[in-house]
C-alpha cells in the first residue's frame, strides 16, 4: 500500500508547479482576454518538453501514463485550466488514436500537429457511432469546443472512432469559461481520414478522457479551496478573521474534504488503468464525483469572498465558471452516470 508520489512524477509536478506559478498564474486574465496564452508562455512550455507527455515513445513521445497526466493536469489546472488545455494541443484525443490505432496512428495524426505549434486538435465525444468507412462524409455541428481552431478532429463514439483532417470550421463563441483555451463552434464538413470500430478501445479512450478533464477539475477546485481559505484568514469581520466564524470554517473544511475525495478517486482510477486493470467504472465514477463536487466547491469559493468573489478582480468567479465548463466535456456527466451505473455490477467485491 503506497499513497506517495513516484519520484519521476514528483519531478514533473515540481517543474510544472514552478512553470504554473511563474507563467500561468500571473497572466491569468491576460490569457483569458487574449483567448490564448501568450507566445512567450507557449514557447516556455514547449521548452519543458511536456507537449507530448502522453504520446507513446514509439511515436516519438514522452510515453508517460495516465497517472502522470492527472498529476500534471491538476498542477496546471490549479493555475489556469484554460491555458492548460491550450498548451496541450493534442489533448485527450491522443488516447483515442492510441487506443484504436496504436503508435502508428498517433504518429500519423498527432505527429504533424506536434511539428506545427500553431495547430490544434479537437476531440468530439459522440453518443452514437456514425458507422463510417474511410473516406466517408462527416457533417455536423459541435456547439462549443475549448479550441481556437481544429486542424484535426478526432471523433469518439460508444464503439468507434474517426479522424478528420481539415474540414472543420471553427467559429468563435463567447463560452462560459476556459477562454484561454479558445472557444469555438465547430462545423464539420469533411471526409474520414481513418475509421475504427472497437468497443473496448472506445471505452478505454473515454475512461482516460474522463480522467483528463476530471484532473483539471481537481486543480480548479483546489484553487477555489486554497484561495478562498487564504482570503478568509485575512479578511476580518466582527472583530476576527471570517474563517474563525464556525459557519465559514466548516464550509472550508467541507470544501477541502470534497476536493480531497475527488483527487483520491481520480488518482485511484488512473493508477488502475496504468496498471492494466479495468478502470472504466472507476474513471466514470471519478468524473461524476469531480463534477458533483464542482457544484459545491465552485460557488462556495465565490461565497467565501462575498461581493469580492463576484467581481473579476479575484479569480474565484473564473474558477466557478471554469469548473462548470469542464464538467460538460468528455461526453458529459449524465453519460458518465449511465456508464458508471451499468458497470458497477461488474466489479464484484468492493475491495
Amino acid at each position, binding site marked *: *500500500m*503506497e*499513497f*506517495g*508520489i513516484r519520484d519521476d512524477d514528483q519531478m514533473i509536478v515540481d517543474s510544472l508547479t514552478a512553470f504554473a506559478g511563474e507563467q500561468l498564474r500571473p497572466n491569468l486574465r491576460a490569457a483569458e482576454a487574449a483567448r490564448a496564452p501568450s507566445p512567450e508562455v507557449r514557447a516556455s512550455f514547449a521548452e519543458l518538453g511536456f507537449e507530448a507527455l502522453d504520446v507513446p515513445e514509439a511515436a516519438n513521445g514522452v510515453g508517460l501514463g495516465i*497517472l502522470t497526466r492527472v498529476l500534471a493536469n491538476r498542477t496546471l489546472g490549479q493555475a489556469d485550466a484554460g491555458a492548460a488545455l491550450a498548451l496541450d494541443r493534442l489533448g485527450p484525443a491522443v488516447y483515442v488514436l492510441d487506443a484504436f490505432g496504436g503508435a502508428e496512428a498517433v504518429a500519423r495524426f498527432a505527429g504533424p500537429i506536434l511539428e506545427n505549434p500553431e495547430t490544434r486538435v479537437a476531440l468530439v465525444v459522440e453518443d452514437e457511432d456514425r458507422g463510417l468507412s474511410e473516406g466517408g462524409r462527416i457533417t455536423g455541428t459541435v456547439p462549443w469546443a475549448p479550441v481556437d481552431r481544429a486542424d484535426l478532429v478526432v471523433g469518439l463514439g460508444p464503439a468507434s472512432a474517426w479522424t478528420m483532417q481539415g474540414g472543420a470550421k471553427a467559429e468563435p463563441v463567447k463560452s462560459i469559461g476556459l477562454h484561454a483555451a479558445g472557444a469555438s463552434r465547430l462545423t464539420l464538413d469533411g471526409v474520414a481520414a481513418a475509421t475504427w470500430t472497437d468497443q473496448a478501445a472506445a471505452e478505454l479512450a473515454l475512461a482516460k478522457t474522463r480522467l483528463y478533464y476530471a484532473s483539471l477539475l481537481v486543480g480548479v477546485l483546489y484553487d477555489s479551496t486554497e484561495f478562498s*481559505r487564504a482570503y*478568509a*484568514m485575512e479578511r476580518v469581520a466582527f472583530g*476576527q*478573521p471570517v*474563517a*474563525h466564524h*464556525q459557519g*465559514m*470554517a*466548516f464550509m*472550508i*473544511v*467541507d470544501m*477541502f*474534504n470534497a476536493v*480531497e*475525495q*475527488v483527487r*483520491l*478517486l481520480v*488518482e*485511484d482510477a488512473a*493508477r488502475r488503468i496504468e496498471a492494466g486493470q479495468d478502470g472504466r467504472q*472507476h474513471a466514470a*465514477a471519478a468524473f*461524476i*464525483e469531480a463534477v458533483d463536487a464542482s457544484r459545491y466547491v465552485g460557488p462556495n469559493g465565490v461565497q467565501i469572498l462575498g461581493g469580492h468573489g463576484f467581481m473579476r478582480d479575484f479569480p474565484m468567479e473564473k474558477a466557478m465558471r471554469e469548473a462548470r465548463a469542464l464538467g460538460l466535456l468528455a461526453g458529459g456527466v449524465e453519460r458518465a*452516470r*449511465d456508464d*458508471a*451505473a*451499468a458497470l*458497477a*455490477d461488474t*466489479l464484484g467485491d*468492493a*475491495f
Partner: protein
Amino acid sequence: MELQISPQLKKLVEDAREWGETEARPAGLEADRAGSPLPVDHPYFQKFIDRGRSRGERLAAAEPAPEGRVAQMVVLGEEDAYWDRGMGVASPGAGFPSGMVNAAGTPEQKERFLGPFAHHTTPHWASFALTEPGGGSDTAAFRTHARKTDKGYVLNGAKCFIGNAARADWVLVQTTLDPTKGRAAQRAFFVERSTPGFTGVKIEKKMGLRSYESVSFILEDCEVPADHLLGGERPEPKSGAAGSGAYGATMGALNATRVGVAASALGVARAAYDEARRFAKESGAIKSSRIRDKLELMLRKIRGARLMTLQAAWMADNRRSNILESSMAKIVTAEVAQETAALGMEIVGLEAGAGDNLVEKLFRDAKALNIVEGTGQIQRVIMGRNLVGLPR
C-alpha cells in the same frame, strides 16, 4: 499510489469473513432482535476465546503482512464491521483501554491489569469511561472528581454511554483532580467492578448497535488505592499541557482510533450497499435506472471514503502527521455510512420498513458512528483549527 493488499492481509480478511458470516452476524442479529447485548455466558463469547478471535491474537498467529499496523487495522476493521459492528465492540478482551495502559501505564499496571487477558480461558472484559452526562465531546470539561487521601483516592461523579462497563473486570475512569485546572489536572484510575461505591449501573436501551453494552454508572465515594492511578504518581504538568499524562493518553488513544471508527463505518456502508444490491437484483428493481443510479452513488461514496481512510492509515504507518486526514476520514465515512444505509432503505422499500431486513438494522447502527469518538462537528472543529486556525 499503489493500493493492492498483500496476500497475507487478504488471508486475514478471508478469515474475518468466515467468522463474520458464520458467527458475528448471526450473533449481532440475535442481540438486535432481543433488544439487548448477548449475556456474558452466551456461547458466542466462549467460542470467541477458544478460537483466538481477538485482533491481537489473529495478527500474532498470521504470517506477518507488509502493510503497516494501522492499515491492517483499517482493512480488518472494515471487514469485521461489515458483518456486525456491535459484536466487534462486544468482543471480550482489554479492548480500547489497552492502548492507553500500554502508552501511559507503569510496568506493574501493565502486568496487573493487562497481563491476565493474555491467559484468560473464559471471556473477560475491560472498559474505558470518558463521557459524562454533562459532557460528551469536550474531553477537557469532565467533572468526575478524584480527591487524594492518605490511603489513595476517592472518586465521585457519573459516567454514561460506557462500552462493556457492566461486564468489565475493571474500568479505566477519566477524572479530574481540580475542574478549574483543565487538562493538566486530569487523571485516569483503574476501578475494579467490585469496588464499593461503583454503583447505579444501568445498561441503556439504544436505537442501534444493540449488541454491546452502553452503560451509565455512578461513582459514590469510591475509594481506590494510589497504585490504581494510571501512570502512577507523577509531577503535575504545567497547566494546559496536553501531550502527557491522562489527557495526553486519552487524546492519543482517540487520535489512533479515529481511523478505526472510519473503518467500521466503511464496513457498515458496504454491508448496506451489498444488501441493497442483492435485494434490487432479486426483486428486479435493478432494471430501474433510478435504482442503478442510487447503487452507483453508494459505491462511489464508499470508494472515496475508503481511499481517505486508507490514506490516513498509511500516513500513520509512515509516521506522517495525519490529524487532518484522520478527522476527514471520520467525517466522511460516518456520513457515507448513514447516507448509504438510508439509500439502501429506499431501495429495499417497505421490506426495510417492516424491520426484518438487514439494511434496517444498519440504518439504525450507522447513526452512532457520526457521534462516537468525536462527532462530525468536533472533527470539523479539529480540521478547522488546522486549516484556518479556528480559535479554541
